């Protein structure tokens, strides 16, 4: 109780020497959707503050999915994600994609990939079609847009020339032999080999990040290429774990290809993965350059509605700043991101206590079988929104005029099964920022 009173006093206290930040838009959340929302806002000259723990974005595979599977029940994968969206929207009019024009989704993707490109992360897509990426399990995952460093693998899957997959002793959960075994039916001409990463023989468990960072040094690249070259033999393409450098991954790849003599591609690894880390670093360094004031590694602990906007209390343990803002984008994610939480009976939105769509009682939340193709109903829970991405109450009316919700916290989607995580994050962020700008003009 005293803690509660202290917090209230802190919020009401405007005279003390604590930090008060004033802005137009506060973006809460530092996952893909929060990052994208901050980018879109900054690009449009909106005075933006972003708050959130950026660690979870490294659980991203680095692939930017748009829509790969619909309906999930039949596990139908789509060659053309745009046609898939048409079908999804006509089958399921409450899906967040139903509230965004496809034109805007394209613009949103273009803006994000251009930004990542400027930060050194070249992304590639076929624009009109999904492609399959080889994962470290040897499964094929449909995606829309992938790091250019993975593209040789995507192409080689169609021509299946003699190829080589190499793994690294001590890097757990990545077995080249597993990949060649699993891919045998579609790519019989794959061989596998194992190397010891240069300069890291002594370590037992190897982690991807030190390896990726070490490849920034030309000498280390030469040493690695020296180990790989003799293994090539008849192989015409070489797959390695995704460790080819950090922000300079394209240069590392090009350099390695020149030294080895055949095209090289990265295979996304178990999270936390380097491609996810690269995205995080790109946003973390480039958003502040665009004028976004960032409070990473902080959480918003409380939000109060004021007459003309919101007051946000920021601080992980104790309050360290108050943010005065006109609008809020809530991109706090689902359970892992702590945007939602659940006790034994109810799913809640903890920051504002917004109404959460409840998919039945706990009995109904999860299927009996983990891999049940229909997906778990709890993944459809979340915030329901109006056409302007504002959370609504039971009657469908927006709860606050300038409060927007984006990304995985939204109801009536299942990004994990539909393979639409990044697409959902990016497109809804775009739509929300657009709606905020339109309301600000009125």
């Amino acid at each position, binding site marked *: 109780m005293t803690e509660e009173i202290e917090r209230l006093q802190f919020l009401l206290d405007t005279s003390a020497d604590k930090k008060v930040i004033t802005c137009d838009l506060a973006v809460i959340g530092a996952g893909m959707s929060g990052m994208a929302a901050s980018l879109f806002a900054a690009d449009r000259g909106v005075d933006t503050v972003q708050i959130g723990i950026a660690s979870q974005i490294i*659980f991203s*595979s680095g*692939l930017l999915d748009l829509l790969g*599977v619909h309906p999930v029940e039949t*596990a139908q*994968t789509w060659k053309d994600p745009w046609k898939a969206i048409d079908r999804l929207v006509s089958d399921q009019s409450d899906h967040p994609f139903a509230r965004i024009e496809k034109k805007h989704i394209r613009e949103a993707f273009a803006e994000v990939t251009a930004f990542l490109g400027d930060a050194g992360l070249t992304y590639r897509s076929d624009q009109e079609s999904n492609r399959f990426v080889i*994962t*470290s*399990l*040897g*499964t*094929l*995952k*449909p995606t829309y847009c992938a790091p250019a460093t993975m593209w040789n693998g995507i192409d080689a899957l169609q021509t299946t020339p003699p190829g080589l997959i190499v793994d690294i*002793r*001590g890097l*757990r*959960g*990545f*077995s080249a*032999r*597993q990949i060649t*075994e*699993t891919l*045998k*039916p579609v790519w019989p001409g794959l061989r596998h080999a194992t190397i010891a990463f240069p300069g890291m023989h*002594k370590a*037992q*468990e190897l982690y991807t990040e030190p390896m990726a960072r070490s490849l920034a040094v030309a000498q280390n690249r030469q040493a690695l290429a020296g180990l790989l070259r003799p293994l090539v033999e008849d192989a015409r393409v070489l797959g390695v774990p995704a460790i080819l450098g950090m922000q300079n991954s394209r240069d590392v790849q090009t350099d390695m290809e020149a030294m080895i003599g055949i095209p090289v591609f990265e295979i*996304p690894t*178990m*999270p936390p993965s380097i491609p996810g880390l690269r995205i995080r670093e790109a946003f973390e360094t480039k958003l502040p350059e665009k004028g976004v004031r960032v409070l990473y590694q902080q959480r918003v602990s409380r939000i109060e509605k004021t007459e003309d906007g919101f007051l946000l209390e920021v601080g992980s343990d104790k309050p360290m700043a108050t943010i005065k803002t006109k609008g809020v984008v809530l991109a706090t994610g*689902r*359970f*892992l991101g702590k945007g939602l*939480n*659940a*006790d*034994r009976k109810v799913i809640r939105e903890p920051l504002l206590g917004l109404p959460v769509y409840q998919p039945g009682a*706990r*009995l109904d*939340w*999860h299927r*009996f*079988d*983990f*891999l*049940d*193709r229909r997906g*778990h109903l*709890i*993944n459809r829970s979340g915030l329901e929104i109006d056409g302007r991405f504002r959370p609504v109450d039971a009657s469908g009316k927006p709860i606050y005029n300038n409060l927007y919700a984006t990304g995985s916290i939204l109801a009536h989607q299942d*990004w*994990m*099964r539909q*393979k639409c*995580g990044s697409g959902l994050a990016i497109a809804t962020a775009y739509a929300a920022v657009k709606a905020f700008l339109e309301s600000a003009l009125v």
Partner: protein
Amino acid sequence: MARDLALRGIDCILVERYDINAGASGANHGLLHSGARYVSKDASAAAECRKEGALLKKLASDCIEDTGGLFVAIEGDDERFVADFPRLCARSGIDARSLPVEDAREMEPLLSDKLIAAYRVPDASVDPFKLTLENVHQARALGGSLLRHSEVTGFEIDRHRIVRTRLKNLLTGETFFIQADQVLNAAGAWAKEIAALAGCSLNLLYSKGTLLVTHNRLTRQVINRLRPSSNADILVPGGTVSILGTTSIRIDNLDAIYPTVEETDFILEEGASMIPALEKTRFIRAYAGVRPLLGSSTEGDDRKVSRGFALIDHAESGLNNFATITGGKLTTYRLMAEKAADLISQRLGVSTPCQTRTEPLPSAAGAKWTKPGLAPRMWIKEHAPDDILLCECEMVPKSVVDNLISSIRQQNGTPDLKALGVRSRIGKGACQGTFCALRTGAYLYDKGEVKEEEGLDGIRAFISERWRGIRPLLWDTPLIQAELQEAIYCGMYGLEL
């Protein structure tokens, strides 16, 4: 049984449909009863537990943690039952000592402040996985054999004898036969189905019990609710965790043995009246086992049916070399084997007496990895430089997996993830297999133990099996963990496609 027979010099083949510990041997409370729980309704079962418990503490000490136990009553519990308890314990020879409630709460601070009575009893905690593996290990060392994944599909009967037992290898689908002088049915809850294959009928009821595993160990001792046996009134410590249970639900179908959301909530709410902290405790797993109960109870409460065991000589049904042992409980497992082996020996004309009553159970190298907390200690103490950890939650290194793979091979088994899982702590930590299944799966490919899609199927099967036990517990932190698992398995790898 196999160990007892082997010690008497009897050549024995043990056949198991799935794997060791697949049934109730692996899905129980891990409680070595002092007998106090049965004093009011079954004095002889109570005395049996007391004797066997004391014996096993001596002979199988490395499978047992002699924690001691408490029986506690809280406000609202039947005071007459509480008052009778010491007398009933004395009747069965059980050492129950009254304890001031303040002392009980000092010993176990998580006990409710509504405590009205407490007694100390000689309960203990037992590692059932290790116990079974060590028994099998000695039986094999003495010349017995074990056939896993071998299902009995029928008996060939001629002139009042089982001439051949027909089996099916569930991995290869092939049929084979065993020609044995004597056939003993020790199939637990499945004893009725096996007996039926030989044309014998058994009166067996199936009672499902669900248990919850906590993330951390909550108490030092076994905590029992001092009331007539009911739901969720025992909390047993096991290594670094505690196990809360159970329910008792009559089932008709042995295929549906899994914990449900309703049972979980019920156990939690009941248990919390004894230990309020359970409401806020993180649980990592739920599981269910089936008790085979003898006799026909038409009443609702299966707890009133005897927990004693029965040895059935099927001579009455016209079969002279067939017997069934069933019912009972973990605490009396040795005694059950002794009685059954006595019958078999007598029929075979073997006069060597039972030795499990006096011979200590030897430790088996391959069995030790089931114990929570052991692998980390061993790994920190001594490990080769390249011995990397495949499971970080429970610290299971590559060398342990290698060790297990070769022991599974020796038992003619397939070292897939599930088989590794029942023999180690893999998949049993906080991540419930999310990371270690992928790492161990990759390692099995590296070793050439699995080919093509086999390894992926193994990962799917393993994670689905773990899922059954976490599904009823998905709120708060475990829900977050489950979301991460799905993000990786489905979102990133598309394993559901």
